[in-house]
């Protein structure tokens, strides 16, 4: 007995095939069928979701514009020490490629790209290219410095060298309000240009606040729903779900109607004499508006997971706790509440993750102070067309969410997550 167990650590079938292998073979068909069932969706997600996201994320480091428009200049600058101004070769390459790029109409893109890093570069580049296109001849060093004195400055050339890199980390630095100074060191942006760290912090803070508000408002509702007879609770559940069936835009607009300076709530307050007509409360187009509207819109995402967990808790647990001598509060706190933790966790992580990337509501009711990071990402996607920075900010946001998810799985455990 003892000798066989030592030798036969692997259990074999009668033919001598290891049992595990045999099991794999016999279940192979089932696994292939299961895989085939998900293949269409998998392909769909791959093509329409994963690949675009990957491409987008790649944009945060991909930096082709300047490298493609001014390849010779970038090559010439490779040997430049970074001190003073580069030699004639770089000036010559720049002048030649500026003329060429102007003819090809690619100079604008490069100018815009350079301008993201150092403001004023756009006008410098376009005006220089315009002057050069009149057929001016070298030596280019003196010529360019004559056209614009900034060509004699080290930081102009340092910017071209930096942005000329095919792959770059400048967007990530920018996401954290950092940049390379003229000497190539990573330093903080000038104070007036520091925004993203603050916006990230604001986004996290708003998300946390909305999550806590949703929990405080949603938990009692979920408890009520789970304890009422199903006839009544089904009706109330429809009320909870009603927002899901209404357009997000309609709901947000409704909040505008309610909260604006001459809206329903302010009118009521004035009518009731609680505030004067001249001191109406600003409740929308600021942070308050964002928080109120987001809490309302995300509430069902908190109520539903908590409700579904509460529904599974047997009422006999509370009865047992009472019969064992615990007063109702103690029974609730020690017996009921701990069993709802998976629902709280699921609801909170759901609300938090949705709110961290929330866009439309802050855009509509956030005004100037209620904007979140996604509004800035959208701004860089649509207005400033700095896709690289948008991609970097998006990547940082994604990393934040994944980090939180990981933390949650470490602290609470993903198996405890219950989404209904």
């Amino acid at each position, binding site marked *: 007995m003892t000798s066989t167990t030592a030798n036969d650590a692997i259990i074999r079938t009668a033919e001598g095939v290891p049992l595990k292998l045999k099991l794999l073979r016999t279940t192979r068909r089932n696994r292939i069928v299961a895989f085939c069932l998900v293949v269409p969706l998998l392909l769909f997600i791959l093509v329409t979701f994963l690949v675009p996201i990957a491409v987008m994320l790649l944009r945060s480091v991909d930096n082709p514009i300047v490298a493609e428009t001014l390849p010779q200049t970038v090559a010439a600058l490779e040997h430049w020490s970074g001190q003073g101004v580069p030699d004639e070769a770089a000036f010559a390459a720049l002048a030649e490629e500026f003329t060429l790029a102007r003819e090809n109409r690619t100079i604008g893109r490069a100018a815009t790209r350079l301008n993201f890093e150092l403001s004023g570069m756009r006008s410098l580049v376009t005006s220089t290219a315009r002057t050069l296109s009149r057929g001016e001849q070298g030596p280019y060093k003196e010529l360019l410095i004559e056209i614009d004195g900034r060509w004699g400055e080290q930081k102009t050339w340092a910017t071209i060298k930096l942005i000329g890199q095919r792959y770059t980390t400048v967007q990530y630095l920018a996401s954290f309000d950092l940049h390379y100074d003229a000497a190539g060191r990573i330093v903080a942006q000038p104070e007036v240009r520091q925004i993203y760290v603050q916006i990230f912090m604001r986004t996290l803070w708003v998300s946390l606040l909305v999550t806590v508000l949703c929990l405080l408002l949603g938990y009692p509702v979920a408890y009520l729903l789970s304890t009422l007879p199903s006839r009544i609770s089904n009706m109330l559940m429809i009320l909870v779900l009603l927002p899901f069936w209404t357009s997000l835009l309609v709901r947000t607009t409704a909040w505008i109607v309610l909260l604006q300076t001459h809206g329903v709530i302010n009118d009521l307050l004035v009518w009731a004499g609680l505030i004067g007509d001249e001191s109406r409360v600003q409740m929308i187009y600021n942070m308050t508006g964002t928080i109120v509207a987001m809490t309302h819109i995300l509430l069902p995402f908190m109520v539903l997971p908590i409700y579904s967990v509460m529904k599974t808790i047997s009422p006999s647990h509370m009865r047992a706790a009472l019969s064992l*001598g615990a007063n*109702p509060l103690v029974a609730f706190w020690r017996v009921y509440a701990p*069993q709802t933790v998976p629902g709280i966790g699921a609801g909170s992580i759901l609300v938090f993750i949705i709110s961290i990337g929330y866009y439309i509501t802050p855009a509509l009711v956030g005004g100037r102070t209620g904007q979140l990071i996604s509004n800035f990402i959208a701004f860089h996607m649509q207005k400033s067309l700095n896709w690289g920075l948008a991609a970097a900010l998006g990547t940082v946001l994604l990393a934040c969410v994944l980090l939180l998810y990981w933390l949650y799985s470490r602290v609470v455990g993903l198996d405890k997550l219950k989404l209904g």
Partner: protein
Amino acid sequence: MPEPNDSLVRFNEVEKTYDGETLVVKSLNLDIARGEFLTLLGPSGSGKTTCLLMLAGFEPTTHGEIILDGEPINNVPPHKRNIGMVFQNYALFPHMTVEENLAFPLEVRRLPKTQIAEKVRRALDMVRLRGLGSRMPSQLSGGQQQRVAVARALVFEPKLVLMDEPLGALDKQLREQMQYEIKHIHEDLGVTVVYVTHDQSEALTLSNRIAVLNDGVIQQIDTPNKLYENPENAFVAQFVGENNRLLGKVTSINGTGCSVEIDGGGKVEALAVKIDGVGGRTLLSLRPERVRINPTEGQVPNVFDGRVEELIYLGDHIRARVKVCGQDHFIVKIPNASGHSELHKGDQVKVGWAVEDCRALDA
């Protein structure tokens, strides 16, 4: 009946309605003696669980009074009643270990830690689960979970323990084993137990007294053997144990006995237990094991011709379905003792029974 001053629980004219239209419990009077094991036995919807919930304090009474240890408890909330309760689905707290479950009633009573540990240890020993204290309830088998639930209801030493079909979820063998364990725990601790079940054999095994409930009314309350031997009405006779039923009309009454004309033909001498008088309808109740096959001449007054329709071999006894007095479903239990009568399907036999085994009850 126990002496009134010895009663721990008294239901005084208790009534209960949930919807304001039908009474689930109708003017219930019940005395439960100290140290007694009383079972409320009845079909589902008979009001037995409602009685238990009212006693535990989870359902208010609509009318009447419940008195525990001399004090009316109608307005005492459940957590102050000091009554242990075992639930059908165990109701162990799934997020606590076995030990934490057992310590819970002691912790909420603010007992010192050392005392809690000692009581928990003893409780675990009592239900023979020593060494499983650090397990979670989900890691235990059904029987083990049930033992923990019993231990938890007893660990704070309540005077009264309520059990609501605690063995309903267990398989047959385990259920029987747990019945003995509960019985022994009751005997050892001397605690008063009120037990609810719809399983008559469980009630017979465990109880000192059984109250048979139907339609919110106690039909009969008696010791197990009296309940089985002397059912007072047709419902009790049918609900407790197996029972042959013969419908008929009373033709004459003589003292404790009566003569009954059976609908299917034949005249039976029976014990008059609950009849309306001569001419009234009655239901004769007859236990299958009290019927004799081919009795000796003159041994019993009731002898009829029958035909064996079906035989089922059950090991310790043989069930014979016999056609008697136009009744197709007349069951006879023949003990599988040495020298028992050999029967075959289709045999013509005589069946007979004594007067005192045949009880004339309300139709």
